[in-house]
């Protein structure tokens, strides 16, 4: 829809409806069938704000829909608020990385609290995010923003000088990633000066940071009125390939420590509502290093794993926690005790290990393993495999569920090596 057209529409609707229409609508910002399903199941009136290409689908299935191009930022952006306000929307829930600041801007207007928007921007710039964490006394690695390749080379040298490396030593790697992309999109480890050339000039500005040792895990914290209502720990077996929920006993022991760190993060970032998905590294002696944090649906099928392990829909939880009107009783009733899970739910994301594939081979032992639940791999159309972007666009996922976290870890490791696509 053209902007000027929209103006006409909104003015008509505005005159018909008051902003305080009850019941109010929840706006799902982004496109996720799971989230739409959750909203419908909760019997909440909702509207989806998604990329225009989903409009016909939404229309076909009677989903209230506003088409929006999240990449276009201009003086017309205000139209989205006006339009949603006219519909009676009071809550915006971000689903994708690219929607976080849009939801922030909308919620800032809905609640008349401009700072909400600034806080959401904090979550969209990895450099600002780190700086904020550092100011708040959260332990982070050494980091800097890079604007060109010389910056990276200098940073690599300075970090290694600080580590007292001398000529001929193998350098400690540094990591670079775009400031505003989801998860691992564009993430690169730089080990030598030569590797800097792999980076395109268009990728700048980038965040650079020193390498952090330790076990990596993520937290999904559901926050309401600035308090963590439920905290899940997702254990990474291999970043981007396999993870499981909840954490194994050895990591679970550190739960009090983690809970404390997450609340510290929530306070520092002044996060009031919704879900956050921070990533940490933990050293064997229990030191936590903060990696980064997002405020949206996490990747790696983590929400699905939470549902399998704990029995509640994380999508519903996100919507509940995003709404300031949700009561403590509702939350109390909704979330289980975090130690009270039904088993370990894990998944392995499969991406072909070769450049050209023509068939799928799923071993029978895998399908017959008692932990195996299901997979969504299909024989591929024969052809060249697309390069993996971030850890997205995997070909399919294998889901496991079982009692023992060690067996789970073993399975995930074993089949990560397996060549499913031949």
């Amino acid at each position, binding site marked *: 829809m053209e902007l000027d057209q929209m103006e006409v529409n909104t003015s008509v609707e505005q005159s018909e409806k008051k902003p305080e229409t009850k019941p109010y609508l929840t706006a799902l910002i982004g496109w996720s069938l*799971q989230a739409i399903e959750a909203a*419908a199941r909760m019997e909440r009136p909702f509207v989806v704000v998604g990329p225009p290409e989903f409009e016909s689908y939404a229309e076909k*299935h009677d989903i209230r829909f506003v088409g929006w191009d999240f990449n276009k930022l201009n003086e017309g952006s205000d139209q989205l608020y006006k339009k949603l306000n006219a519909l009676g929307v009071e809550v915006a829930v971000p689903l994708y990385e690219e929607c976080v600041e849009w939801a922030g801007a909308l919620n800032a207007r809905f609640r008349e609290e401009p700072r909400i928007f600034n806080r959401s921007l904090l979550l969209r710039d990895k450099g600002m995010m780190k700086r904020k964490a550092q100011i708040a006394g959260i332990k982070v690695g050494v980091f800097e923003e890079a604007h060109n390749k010389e910056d990276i080379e200098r940073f690599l040298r300075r970090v290694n000088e600080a580590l007292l490396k001398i000529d001929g030593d193998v350098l400690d790697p540094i990591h670079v990633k775009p400031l505003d992309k989801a998860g691992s999109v564009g993430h690169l480890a730089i080990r030598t000066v030569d590797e800097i050339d792999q980076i395109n000039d268009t990728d700048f500005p980038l965040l650079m940071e020193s390498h952090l040792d330790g076990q990596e895990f993520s937290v999904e914290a559901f926050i309401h009125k600035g308090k963590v209502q439920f905290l899940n720990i997702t254990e990474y077996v291999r970043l981007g390939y396999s993870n499981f929920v909840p954490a194994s006993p050895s990591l679970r022991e550190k739960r009090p420590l983690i809970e404390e760190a997450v609340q510290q993060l929530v306070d520092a970032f002044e996060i009031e509502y919704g879900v956050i998905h921070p990533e940490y590294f933990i050293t064997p002696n229990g030191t936590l290093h903060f990696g980064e944090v997002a405020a949206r649906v996490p990747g790696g099928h983590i929400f699905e794993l939470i549902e399998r392990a704990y029995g509640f829909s994380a999508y519903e939880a996100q919507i509940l926690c995003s709404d300031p009107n949700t009561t403590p009783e509702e939350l109390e009733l909704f979330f289980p005790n975090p130690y009270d899970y039904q088993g370990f739910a894990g998944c392995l994301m499969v991406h072909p290990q070769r450049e050209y594939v023509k068939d799928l081979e799923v071993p029978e032992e895998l399908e017959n393993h008692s932990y195996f639940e*299901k997979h969504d791999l299909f*024989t*591929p*159309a024969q052809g060249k495999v697309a390069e993996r972007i971030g850890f997205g666009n995997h070909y399919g996922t294998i889901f496991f569920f079982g009692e023992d976290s060690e067996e789970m870890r073993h399975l995930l490791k074993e089949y990560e090596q397996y060549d499913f696509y031949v």
Partner: protein
Amino acid sequence: MPQSTGVIVERFEKALNDLDQAQPFVKSKYQTDVYQEANRLIEMEDGLEHLYKHANQFEQSGVFQDGPWESADKLQPPLVAGSLKAKGLPTIIEVLSELRMLAIAKGDATNPTVSKEMAEEFLNEVMVLNLDILFPDASESSRVEDDSGNSEKAQKLFQFLISHLSSKALVRTLISEIERLTAQRPIMIKRIVSMIQTAKQMTNADSEPEDQEQLQTYIAALEGPSPLSHKYKDLHTYRSQLKDMERNDLISESVSLAKSMRTTGLVAPHHATLIRFLSKRMPGLLTYALGLNSKGLANLEENDELVRQMIKAAIFPATRQAIYGLALMLERGVLSHSPVAPGLRRLIELDIRPEVRKDLYQASQAGEGLTANSILVAGTIQVLGQPLGVGQGFNPTCQAARGISLWAQHAPGFLLEIIPRAARDGDIDFTFEGQAINSQHLSGGLAPNLHTELDPVSLVLVPHLDRIYSEMMSRVALRGDDGHRWVNPAFYGNWVQKGFNSAFDPLTGYVLDYPGFVKLFYATHHPEYNDDYELIYPNPVGIFITNVHGKLLGLHAISITRIAEGPDGEYRVFFYNPNNDGSQNWGQSIEPSVQGNGEEEGESSLPFDEFTSRLYAFHYNPYEQGDAYAVDTAIVNKILTLAKESWGKDYTWV
């Protein structure tokens, strides 16, 4: 320990139930699990039976929702094979979709848009189109091409379907398909033969006596249509029987074989034995064995020696179809063109290049002891006898096929010039706007990997012609007008008229002045408006090919052969379609016919206005224009509507 069928069935039922319970907009999230479990079942023994038990719920549960298989009434039998070969997801959904159709056909399920009869018809059509899956032949090509386990799934599906469908209806469909195809008298009859064989395997005591009788005609045409050939299937015995026969018996044997050939277009191997025998012993009887009319007989007598030479060189049981070509060639009087006789004689002794020789051998059956020259001469006889039987096979080379057909009709001397150039020299040269184009220096073309199920002449010529045509088109690509304007006269020859009109602008893709386009076509081609100028040479025109729903599939090259009144007195356009399947459904009830409306063998035809609605470019003689202004607005508007609501949806109209 492998999981038992029971466990998988349970899991499938659960997945299907979850899908059923899901809200309409979120079906896709649950479909994956259904497809996964269905896939496991398809691979298991009796899995299809288990799946079929739920087939009546597939549609309402949302198994097909939001995908290409969503509307059962929009599915098309010709697309089934592609999905089954695509592997992976498309195969799984296709199998489920067929089971849905079967449930409708058997009355186990109802569908608001597809009736029991429609479903049955659909499945019959699918079976007929996929005979190779149902009865796989052990040919080299099917072995090489099929390295996946998918044909096994497809075979399982088809075996399952056939066990549930009435063989009566299937046989009926097969026979009408055979009728439809033989009516067009293609040179390549492989598909027809395999259909006849299938029908033969499927007929049993239950089959309708009428169908059996009709089918018997076709079977006999292939295996022995005369009492003698029926009795002595073995060619050696048959041949020795011939030696002892009286002249009168030989005549009646000849007449009997010729009659079968003339009714079906199919030739029995015995026929070749007979022709060779007569040519040596009683050449006077050849006219009976070929079933010649008076013109054919005159031509035979005039070229007696050459014909016998060709029989000796080229008519063998393996090349038996060339007998039909020979008969028609004599009746067309082609041998009276002075360059034809020497041209044919040259082929008999031509020094064929090794790679061409190899191609020719590969395309013919092995073990017959034929020389490449025999194959090539037989093929040339066929093309000259059945110019409208030339087909493009599985290649996107309609232009080349159209050229061969056109030259075989009107420039046999030229055709006989380029065949040896390609077969002996590996090169064909054309002059285009004063510059020479040599095919041997060109690469690319539309068909770099030619599918070799082609007649021998096409096999030799198409790789060259295809490259030359492409080269010509690329030389004029930047001229801002449809390149066919210049390329067609240069490629096909000077009898292609220089006037040219196209429905859309090739640079912008905009449709400009469509009513003017329609009127000009009427004024230059329709006898009521064009001052009675007759079409003398075939006109190579371009058409929009649309599918059964009128959706544009692409552009295609055909030739208008003539404009004449059909049996109902309405003017029809008769045309040659090189795809050898001239009666596809083009949507909007536009369905070219291949028989019954005055078509000659190999022609298709459509009412003039319906044809015009699919036309996009044609040649005309600028000096032979009639009265464009006189064309009735109602006619133009009707065509405009047909065009706009079909291919026109993919174009911008200005």
